[in-house]
């Protein structure tokens, strides 16, 4: 009966209730969307970064080098000769050098020439097939394989550049020898082969106008470096930047900088969303306050019929809470819808999906915040129950 009264009262002033729920929904959904995108970006970014201490590549923007080399989302800064890596490979402070060579794609998925340890670095596992051994053999990441709908033993020809509409390398075709399991990292969207494959595809074209030997021309795009000790971090980047034609960029620093820039925008949005939530709270307050004024007679009537003040107090509180909780639930649903749309967009342009099923820890805090807004907004009007003088209110004409 109590719930029925509460529900009927909410329903009796549909527009007011709708406004409260709508405002709460907007506040919650904006914050939840920001939290989700922020957290998932951050976790994807940090997962891909893990273990890579430094990236070397052609001079240019360090952030671009990191984005292209580690995350495979920006264009590369340029090429560097493979032989420039030799001093690094021999440096005792360096544990591992993972050269990467890119510049071609198949239907928008990047073909990356590398060495076998790159796969090991991600602890990649095979869903079917095996690793690349010979030139022109490729291993395909789980997501790329799914989207391209390829299987082991399929062949394809690559296109030049990183966009789908590149010029085709018609005469050389790659053969798929392995499909990777889902790795939740950047390799999910890559097509991997050995460095020689990339060189072979390009040498062929270049040799049309230049008759030169290969080994000097063996260019790579960048190399991911792991240090053996933190001492490397202190000295090597500076040496490279000052003494060679390459640049060294530190992923940790660049990504921190990136998130700092993004953080400013996110904070502004969060402040806006909090303001919307607050307005929703005020609207719940005004709705209930007016309701109490209008329903003063009803309340006095119910008190005269034996209703306890505490019961009526909870009845009003419940109205506020139901409004804010339904706002919260709708907000989370809307944010999931938003995530799904954003995920589809990101997937199309960056081959990067967002998970819509997980409830972030911060969203639990949001629920608490929504409850607090509801409680505080309902508290003052509800306390008005205790000030009602039954006989005076009902005798009032």
């Amino acid at each position, binding site marked *: 009966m109590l719930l029925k009264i509460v529900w009927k*009262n909410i329903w009796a002033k549909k527009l007011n209730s709708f406004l409260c729920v709508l405002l709460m929904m907007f506040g919650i959904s904006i914050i939840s969307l920001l939290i989700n995108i922020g957290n998932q970006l951050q976790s994807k970014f940090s997962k891909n970064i893990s273990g890579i201490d430094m990236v070397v590549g052609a001079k240019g923007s360090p952030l671009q080098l990191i984005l292209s080399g580690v995350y495979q989302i920006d264009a590369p800064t340029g090429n560097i000769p493979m032989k420039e890596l030799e001093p690094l490979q021999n440096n005792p402070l360096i544990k591992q050098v993972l050269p990467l060579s890119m510049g071609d794609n198949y239907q928008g998925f990047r073909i990356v020439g590398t060495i076998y340890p790159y796969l090991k670095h991600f602890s990649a596992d095979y869903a079917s097939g095996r690793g690349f051994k010979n030139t022109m053999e490729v291993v395909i990441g789980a997501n790329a394989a799914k989207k391209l709908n390829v299987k082991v033993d399929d062949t394809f020809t690559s296109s030049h550049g990183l966009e789908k509409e590149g010029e085709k390398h018609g005469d050389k075709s790659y053969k798929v020898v392995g499909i990777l399991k889902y790795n939740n990292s950047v390799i999910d969207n890559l097509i991997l082969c050995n460095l020689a494959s990339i060189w072979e595809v390009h040498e062929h074209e270049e040799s049309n106008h230049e008759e030169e030997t290969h080994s000097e021309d063996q260019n790579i795009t960048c190399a991911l470096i792991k240090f053996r000790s933190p001492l490397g971090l202190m000295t090597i980047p500076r040496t490279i930047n000052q003494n060679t034609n390459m640049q060294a960029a530190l992923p940790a620093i660049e990504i921190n900088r990136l998130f700092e820039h993004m953080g400013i925008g996110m904070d502004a949005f969060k402040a806006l969303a909090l303001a919307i939530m607050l307005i929703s709270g005020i609207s719940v307050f005004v709705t209930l306050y007016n309701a109490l004024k209008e329903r003063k007679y009803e309340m006095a009537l119910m008190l005269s019929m034996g209703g306890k003040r505490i019961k009526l107090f909870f009845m009003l509180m419940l109205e506020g809470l139901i409004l804010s909780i339904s706002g919260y639930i709708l907000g989370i649903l809307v944010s999931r819808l938003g995530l799904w749309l954003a995920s589809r967009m990101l997937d199309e342009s960056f081959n990067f999906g967002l998970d819509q099923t997980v409830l972030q820890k911060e969203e639990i805090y949001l629920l608490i915040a929504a409850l607090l807004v509801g409680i505080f907004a309902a508290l003052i009007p509800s306390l008005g129950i205790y000030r009602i003088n039954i006989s005076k209110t009902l005798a009032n004409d």
Partner: protein
Amino acid sequence: MLITNSLAFSYGNNNQFDFPNIKLKPKETLLILGNSGTGKTTLLNILALLIQPKSGSLIIEETETTGLNSAELTNFRAKNIGIIFQKPYFVNALNVADNLLLANYLGNKALDKGKMHALANSLGLHDLLRNKVQELSGGEQQRVSIARALMNTPKIILADEPTSALDDENCEKVADLLETQANAVGAALVIVTHDQRLKSRFSNQITL
């Protein structure tokens, strides 16, 4: 059933009401008459246990109510007293049926749908149970108020100017209904009014 002894009440120091003693048995009707400002509604509120008298004794069903605390008063009222207010107050968000059942709910009793239908039938409200109370006419609202006052089978029914807003025909009907319904549940009926039309009908009267 209902016995009062030298009840008195004052809103300030200089404005004291001293009320005549009342003694009422079940199924008896008492008309309390008086002009405005003579304390009719105040006496009704005292009898309804909504305000406490300054002095005197008020015994309902062999219970001395002046000694009860406010929680006990609330329970006692819900159980024993049905009030029909001058203005028809309702919970506007609920329909007629739920407004009637509300009396059971607030009186801490099981919701008695059978009783609701029986009362609605005898008061001619049966087709209106699903309606909103605001959609009813003044006479219909008055009958819903009466039905609600009877939902918990009270020992005393208090009616405050129940007929003042009604035309002659409805006045007659409401008076009939009050009397027959009070008789049916075996309750004493107290009507506070200045309505001349009721004077000739009920012989047991006191004038303030």
